[in-house]
């Protein structure tokens, strides 16, 4: 049981890591970014590219990935958001679906269909604690996720740029009146989210491997985590991710492995029906 929970928590951390950047973009532009799973995937693939094709070390590859991803973030903004910023949100959502198809198939064309992996920063040792055993990499996942989680909370509440981003996210018109350069803030958000995706990519690649379809897989799971927690809430996302990760493992182990994903989706549907604002989200009243 403890073994299952430990594994479940590490899975949950990856869902949450994917969710962080996603929520960042969601808060800033008010639209779901369907391409974010693929962006996480590219974070890993850029690292793979640097290691495999340039023969760089893992650390250097990570730096390369962060830089390349910043570029991808800018591309995401200028290609799939900025031209549509004054249009209905629907337009932006569909553009993000288009971007996700574009990125997924680009990865297929560039790196082929074979799954690949990149090494972990901590190697592939195992940690034994009593009867529980897990790869050291899972410990790294826990630490990095906790760090990013605290960092994100701190960033938005304590730093001036974070507060500006937060203000932009809450009300763009208001932010404009306060003298915040909204477009620049949104660009920064896309870049930040893409850099977070780079970290997420490096965390998931050693355990889950990289393949062109992995982005779609994790974004769907991240969605469920986000809905459980409540859209836009970082706390909710963390809780939702961990809950989903642990639930999945426990269901597969004790209930049914065949219908495991059906149960995850049913949780999503149930939460949407019973508690559309999630466990941490705020209820927003409609204005006339």
């Amino acid at each position, binding site marked *: 049981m403890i073994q299952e929970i430990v594994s479940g928590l590490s899975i949950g951390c990856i869902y949450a890591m994917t969710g962080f950047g996603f929520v960042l973009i969601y808060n800033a532009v008010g639209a779901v970014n369907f391409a974010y799973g693929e962006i996480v995937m590219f974070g890993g693939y850029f690292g793979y590219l640097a290691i495999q094709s340039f023969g760089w070390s893992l650390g250097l590859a990570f730096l390369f990935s962060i830089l390349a991803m910043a570029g991808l973030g800018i591309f995401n903004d200028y290609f799939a958001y900025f031209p*549509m910023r004054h249009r209905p949100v629907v337009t*932006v959502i569909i553009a993000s679906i288009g971007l996700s*198809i574009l990125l997924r198939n680009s990865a297929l064309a560039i790196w082929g269909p074979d799954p690949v992996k990149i090494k972990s920063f901590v190697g592939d040792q195992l940690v034994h604690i009593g009867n529980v055993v897990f790869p050291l990499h899972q410990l790294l996942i826990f630490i990095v996720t906790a760090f990013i989680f605290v960092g994100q909370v701190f960033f938005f509440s304590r730093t001036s740029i974070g507060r500006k981003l937060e203000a932009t996210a809450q009300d763009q018109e208001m932010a404009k009146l306060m003298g915040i350069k909204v477009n620049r803030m949104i660009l920064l958000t896309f870049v930040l989210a893409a850099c977070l995706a780079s970290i997420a990519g490096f965390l998931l690649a050693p355990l889950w491997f990289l393949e062109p379809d992995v982005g779609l897989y994790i974004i769907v799971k991240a969605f469920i985590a986000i809905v459980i927690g409540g859209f836009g809430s970082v706390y909710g996302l963390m809780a939702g991710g961990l809950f989903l990760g642990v639930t999945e493992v426990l269901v597969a182990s004790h209930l049914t492995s065949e219908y495991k994903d059906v149960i995850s989706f049913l949780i*999503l549907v149930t939460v949407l029906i019973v508690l559309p604002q999630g466990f941490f989200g705020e209820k927003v009243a409609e204005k006339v």
Partner: protein
Amino acid sequence: MGFTKRQMIVTLICFAAAVVLPIFFRGSRYYMNLFNLAGIFIILTFSLNYIHGYLGLISIGQAGFFAIGAYITAGLTMGLGINYFPALLLASIAAALAGVLLGLPASRIGGHYFVLITLAFGEIVRLIILNWKEVTHGTNGVNNIPPPRLGPLLIESRFAYYYLVLFFIIVTMVVAASVRRSKYGRSMLATKVGELAANVMGINPLSTKLINFGISSFFAGLAGGLYASYIGSISPEAFDVDLSVDILTMTLVGGSGTIPGPVIGATALVFLKEWLRAVKEYYMIIYGAGIVLIMIFMPYGIMGLLRRVRDVISSREVR
């Protein structure tokens, strides 16, 4: 708001062309196949056109209703030996019921949540088909689905099937037109632009949306039933999210909320995807980029573009 004379003439010409067209392509199984596929996609696109065009919602779960229609049609004709046409009707009604059922929770939520709940629905349907092997035969799928029989007539050739599909396209379009110009269509459109205002004007948002979902999934199911007997073999792989995204793209490319839009969008994309085959592994990349570019440059689809062109021309005429 009736049809103008010009609209009537254009419609008649299009229908005449649609009736005559296959005679020139009769020899080409390849083109006949594309026409038939386009036809089935036209009906599917009409189904999403209700949800997106009339309620402003995005569904990426249409493949689920399509699958329900396909599997139930196959099951009724093969398992129970029911004639194709009643089976098709029953399957479409079953899909409509599924739509209403999904609508009960889904109508209370909007925007992103709606996208996600439809995504979840589509995936649940696919996973159940995949795993409920006793009924659906899992990945093996249902094979050798018999072609439709109309009295002594066996609709087997692609040429014959074309007219069957054409018939159902006409039915779909007539229903779409009559819904649009009825109180139901107006209620939907009013709910789309201002749900609360429409509610205050006496429109029950729940029943309006449920009717919309019901009609929408009815036609998705109808398309599924046509697809099943046309391809003759169905398996869960055919009904994944990518299909739902394709339908969404077709709706938008054509111009959602209009009657000619789905026809234009579905036909254009079925053929475009074929032409892009020349670039082999890159065609899905171009397809993805295309969706974004359409959103940037043609947010109201081809119909929107045509309308703009018409407005420019007519304003010149005035001058």
